[in-house]
């Protein structure tokens, strides 16, 4: 069994397509799959990027008057997925937090935010209009957004598209594949075959050579939410990209990171990101979902579960998390 990896840096992160070398005419199918993969990422950027004024979601936000606006299929699906996330998390993952995010300074590509952060930045707190103010009409494929509201689909868009790309490549090219968009992972179901090996890095990076915990998954999705990488200073206050919609500010997070396994990348992301946004209540809610998860505690976190020391921090395992694997010989290729 061999695997092939394709990497593309876009959407402010690294995106990977991994496929198993199998079947006839594999090379042709895989190359075509890489093309499709790139196309879908480009489409996502065109439709849902909050950092480019010509994206569809920004045009929808800028030009709306509260009346229904016809949108592309992809944007409609993304907003619908975001609404589902909001419903499941009781509003903690709210797609209308774009204004709050801009108010706190996250209004451009994150590397630019970090650069400006070093020079000193002001911030203001803006409460979101709330996901219940959006109206979606599936028949006319239109969305009504309150005037002035900026949609932020960052909590769900990559995971949703990862699922969609994975399903599409499976269908079009008969590939067994794994799609990883900045840590939002969706993979084909491999059943009894060799599972997908995933390295949960201890430093939160996407560098596969980092120290980490290796485990196998048979399919579905996996997502990690963390505030380690996307944080900045504004007005002398630290901020991060997970917003508490009840305050309009960065959520008070009690965990360094949360990784969740689910039936799809979107569901895993809803669980991990939602639990982060809920603060100290997140862990209770997460247990209630029944999904396997790993929670990395911060120093001040107090939890009831049994924690295990790991690389200078403490991990708590929730649900039926796969066993950690040890590679006894040979090398991990990436």
């Amino acid at each position, binding site marked *: 069994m061999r695997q092939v990896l394709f990497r593309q840096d876009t959407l402010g992160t690294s995106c990977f397509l991994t496929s198993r070398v199998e079947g006839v005419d594999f090379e042709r199918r895989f190359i075509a799959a890489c093309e499709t993969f790139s196309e879908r990422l480009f489409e996502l950027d065109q439709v849902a990027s909050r950092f480019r004024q010509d994206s569809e979601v920004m045009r929808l936000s800028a030009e709306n008057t509260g009346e229904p606006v016809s949108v592309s299929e992809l944007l409609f699906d993304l907003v619908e997925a975001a609404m589902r996330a909001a419903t499941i998390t009781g509003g903690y993952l709210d797609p209308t937090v774009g204004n709050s995010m801009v108010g706190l300074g996250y209004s451009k590509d994150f590397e630019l935010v970090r650069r400006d952060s070093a020079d000193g930045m002001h911030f203001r707190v803006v409460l979101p209009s709330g996901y219940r103010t959006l109206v979606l009409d599936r028949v006319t494929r239109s969305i009504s957004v309150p005037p002035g509201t900026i949609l932020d689909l960052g909590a769900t868009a990559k995971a949703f598209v990862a699922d969609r790309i994975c399903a599409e490549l499976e269908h079009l090219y008969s590939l067994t594949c794994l799609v990883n968009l*900045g840590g939002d992972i969706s993979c084909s179901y491999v059943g009894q075959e060799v599972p997908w090996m995933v390295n949960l890095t201890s430093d939160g990076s996407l560098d596969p050579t980092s120290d980490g915990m290796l485990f196998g998954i*048979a*399919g579905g999705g996996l997502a990690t939410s963390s505030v380690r990488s996307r944080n900045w200073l504004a007005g002398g206050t630290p901020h991060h990209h997970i917003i508490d919609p009840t305050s309009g500010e960065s959520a008070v997070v009690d965990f360094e990171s949360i990784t969740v396994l689910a039936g799809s990348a979107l569901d895993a992301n809803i669980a991990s990101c939602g639990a982060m946004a809920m603060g100290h209540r997140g862990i209770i809610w997460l247990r209630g979902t029944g999904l396997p998860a790993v929670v990395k505690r911060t120093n001040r976190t107090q939890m009831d579960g049994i924690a295990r020391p790991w690389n200078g921090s403490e991990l708590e395992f929730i649900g039926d998390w796969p066993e950690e694997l040890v590679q006894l010989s040979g090398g991990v290729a*990436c």
Partner: protein
Amino acid sequence: MRLGPALGWFSRNYNYEVETQAPLQKHSVGSQQRTPIMYASLFEQKVVPVKHSTKFRDESVMKSKRISKFLWVGALGSVVVVSGLAEKVYPGKVAPSSPAQTTNSASTTGTSGYNVTSSTLAPPPASATAPSGLSATSGSSSSGSAAAAAPTAGS
């Protein structure tokens, strides 16, 4: 050996930047142009078969494999029977066979296959017993297996 025939084919036919090492971070800042591929690498990963850590584990895995062989044959038979029945009763409405498919937004065309009324999160498919390879650090559970690695889950 990280480079395989696919890489040669790829680089001959596509004008992508190709790396032979696993590249580290090189983010694209902004995305104003139709040049989504800033940095691409393509290399093969080989599965390296490794041994199980203990004899006990080897034996237990072999035993469970023998048992599960029969279970799987039985389960497969019943799935086929049930799905055949369902196809007769509800033509065209048979559920997808893979657990992963039940929650994927599988519609790649048309407006959203997502069930917005679903208020629960779907669990992951169960990990299967795999024949050989990596071993679990503890216990004799059924999830140990061989593999080439490995996407990272850091975010």
